[in-house]
């Protein structure tokens, strides 16, 4: 195989498709981490779950496959 083929660009659409879930996980996790610091009380549980949102998604994806 020729490794010196002309380059293939990732279209913005494909790039968006690749990063849509990681970006969502990043946003939810970061919001959870920061919100847990800003708010106290029972909401801590929700924010802790949000902080671990990536773990939940990874577990769900791996279990499904």
């Amino acid at each position, binding site marked *: 195989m020729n490794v010196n083929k002309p380059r293939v660009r990732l279209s913005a659409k494909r790039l968006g498709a690749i990063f849509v879930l990681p970006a969502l*996980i990043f946003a939810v996790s970061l919001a959870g981490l920061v919100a847990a610091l800003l708010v106290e009380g029972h909401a801590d549980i929700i924010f802790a779950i949000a902080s671990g949102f990536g*773990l939940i998604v990874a577990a769900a994806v791996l279990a499904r496959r």
Partner: protein
Amino acid sequence: MGKQTIKSWSWVHKWTSLLCTLFLLMLCLTGLPLIFHDEIDGALNTDSWTPANPAAEHLTLDEILDTALENRPGEVPIFMSFDIDRPVVNVTSGPSADAPGSAMHFASFDLTSGNLVPPADNGESVMEFILQLHTDMFLGLPGMLFLGFMGILFVLSVVSGVVLYAPFMRKLEFGTVRRQQSKRLKWLDYHNLLGIVAVAWLLVVGLTGVINTLEEPIIETWKSQELAGLVASNEGVAASASRASLDAAVNAAIEEAPDMELQFVAFPGSGFSTKAHYAVFLHGRTPVSEHVIAPVLIHAGTGEVAGLREMPWYAKALSLSRPLHFGDYGGLLLKLVWAVLDLLTIFLLVTGVYLWLARGNRRMRVERQLDTGEVLKA
């Protein structure tokens, strides 16, 4: 993204990761027990202490101070601090207010009776050992700064990993793990999946870790610039032989900042005050502002307020980065999430080293990657 760009980012990802792997592994292993520091302390110190007179009115700070000094004749008070969850006042004393840490004496007193509170320090030496290994590897400031540099490499490896995620996933669905192909591909897919879902946490813990390693320079800068201004403008004030009421001084300080509450007191001559003033340190009442402290100088002879100085932004950043790094601010569930993410980081480090060791012949690897869509075609 062209071949050269991918190659450059791969180089950054490989070397930043490899250089910091061993130290990150140590930080993850030592960080794990530190997440559960409170729970471990509680389990090792099961003799629960209760105040002598729970319903009684609390003694004044002056009475506690007198009791502390009666127990340590010839010594002077240096610091006074307060337990959050029990009526206990801690008094640090020494032969002089500027005594080194090794010459200081620390004692805790029951605010309802003035009795000494027995120290709950089972296992403390082990936790202190782990904390110091985690913080500076017993090397002081050079060790802290070195770990800070490792933290910067770690953050770079995470960022470069995110950049490389796009070409690696070009032909794959999110979460694909190619179990039926080579062992290396399988672990590469696990590495990519678990790395990308943990990016937010990895960056937060990495960046706050770097900020924490700058603790000493930040505190020194605060003391030499912001606090020094407050102290210098009061340095010439003559000390007084008589001692103004400590309770009155604390109340006067709180009047200066009514939305704050008492954190600790530095006595005249100590590192955080002048020779003539109590430095009363207050902190905010809200979850965010409780990490932000402000000192108020009160003349120890006359009880007059000399001034309040708020923390500068860089000291506030340090205060907020501590809880965000250790994950001890949101209850047990958040600590468990922290622990799982810590273990996940160990997995990423180990699989990263495995992927590097199992990289094989370069040309064969490039061809295989191109065949499987592992990276973007050149």
